[in-house]
């Protein structure tokens, strides 16, 4: 009910200078995260902090290739993040599968499943390349063009269709209920048997 357009520049500056990263190294690029966070490259100068809780995080670094099993967790984590959220895809694997172009278990094009804001080159991009990608995201936020989350919200059906096409309908319950017979001790299957 309050019109915030007057304060947009300040809010964008705050969003730009305090991005919290979801602590989820999905692929092989995860090994370049520690040097970024620690003494040598130190992203905390830009206010970026790894945060284990997705509810508080803004930036989601997809570090390298994505397998369907990880993609399910990525989608759940992505949907748990509050709204202005940005995705940074590392390396060539999220774009066209990279070195795993013919692997049955690697996603070939990440943008079909979740919106990607910035993609960085490099088969495991160097920390400097990641910082360049982050600089690009900061500029997008500054100019208000980082709208991955808007795209996800507007054409949610397109993303949902792709996801269900890959995992099958109702994949969340199937994945969750997969462990019940082994975890609950009783060899009880649900309504299938």
């Amino acid at each position: 009910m309050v019109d915030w357009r007057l304060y947009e520049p300040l809010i964008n500056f705050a969003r730009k200078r305090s991005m919290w990263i979801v602590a989820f190294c999905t692929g092989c690029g995860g090994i370049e995260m520690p040097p970024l966070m620690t003494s040598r490259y130190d992203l905390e100068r830009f206010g970026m902090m790894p945060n284990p809780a997705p509810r508080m995080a803004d930036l989601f670094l997809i570090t390298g290739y994505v397998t369907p099993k990880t993609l399910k967790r990525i989608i759940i984590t992505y949907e748990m993040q509050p709204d202005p959220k940005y995705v940074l895809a590392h390396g060539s694997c999220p774009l066209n599968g990279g070195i795993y172009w013919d692997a049955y278990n690697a996603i070939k094009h990440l943008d079909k499943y979740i919106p990607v804001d910035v993609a960085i080159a490099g088969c495991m991009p160097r920390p400097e390349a990641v910082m360049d990608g982050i600089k690009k995201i900061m500029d997008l936020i500054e100019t208000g063009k980082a709208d991955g989350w808007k795209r996800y919200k507007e054409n949610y059906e397109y993303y949902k269709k792709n996801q269900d096409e890959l995992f099958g309908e109702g994949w969340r319950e199937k994945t969750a209920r997969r462990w019940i017979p082994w975890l609950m001790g009783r060899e009880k299957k649900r309504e299938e048997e």
Partner: protein
Amino acid sequence: MVTQEELIREARENGMELLPLEKDTYELFFGPQHMATENYSLILKMDGHRVVKAIANPGFLHRGFEKLAEYRPWHTNIALLLRICVPEPDVPEAIYSMAVDELMGWEVPERAQWIRTTVLEMARVSAYLFWMMGLSFKLGVYTAGQWAAAYRERFMALFEELTGARVYHIYTIPGGVRRDIPGDKWLRQLRDTVEYIKDKLKDFDNLVFENYITYRRLEGIGVMDKKFALNEGVTGPNLRATGVPYDVRRADPYLLYPELDFEVPVLKEGDALARALVRRFEFEQDLYILEQLLDMGPPSGPYKVDHPSLKALPRFRVPAGDAFAHVEATKGDFGAYVVSDGGNKPYRVQIRGPSIAHGIRVIEQLLVGARLADVPVILMSLDNCPPDIDR
């Protein structure tokens, strides 16, 4: 998401048990999106703050290396297989090259052996620093973690100068190494780095290894006796912490290790503290080995076998047969079994990462009865590398 009301209606219609199924224990997913596990999931059934039952759920990084390797010529596989273990990628390269050398019957020249040993030792030291950073973050000593990551960067710079890349070096190829050492300046830098880290060790001792609270957090947790370890296929520092002096560099020597003298630290208790201390002493030994190698100096001569087939790599053929080669990685016994049918692509490649034994049955049995605060500590003391399990 199926809403709660639909679930209840469904439960009532089918007259099934009312949910949740078991009320005495609760389930906690120590899943992939968690700071304690890189991308590897544990499903814990908890009672109070103690673990009642643990189930390992690997497979988040499975790319089917063994199938992909059968579609690529011999030399391209180096660029593929080294992506198995990310903290120390030189080990898969080395074992794959040693296996192919054995198949080809090549004898790697002296200089190449020296370079390979140095690269392996540098990989071990940087992997141990990575492990020290992990342990410090899990214990809470963020200062020691930051310092360990900073010192590891020095080795990253050295690797970059030697092989052109920070992490994935694609440097050891069958028959030797891809490029020669970039001159003496690099060797001097390596010696300075080893000296620098040697006298930084006492900082880590004060902060982590001789800290009262670390002893309280690590002592008597995740205890493993010798019989259990051998049955469960545990190798590397985890096995040496239970009293079994098994080190591949002594038991099945390769490259220059017979000529280097270093002792293999062995402890008896088999708990998380023993594993940490074994790694701490081995880290010191690796620095000592690097010093010996530098004193020895790289012998002159070619850095790779000059063989006609190396000129036209796509048509590089390996005679039929199979070979097994394994190396002592920081995580354990890293083995590769290569089968060739004489074609220009390998018939079958099997990489045996040490974490396939540590990360499934061992962790499931060690976690039973552990406190939730100990789960990340036990995971870190076993030093699992999830891609080893999924390959």
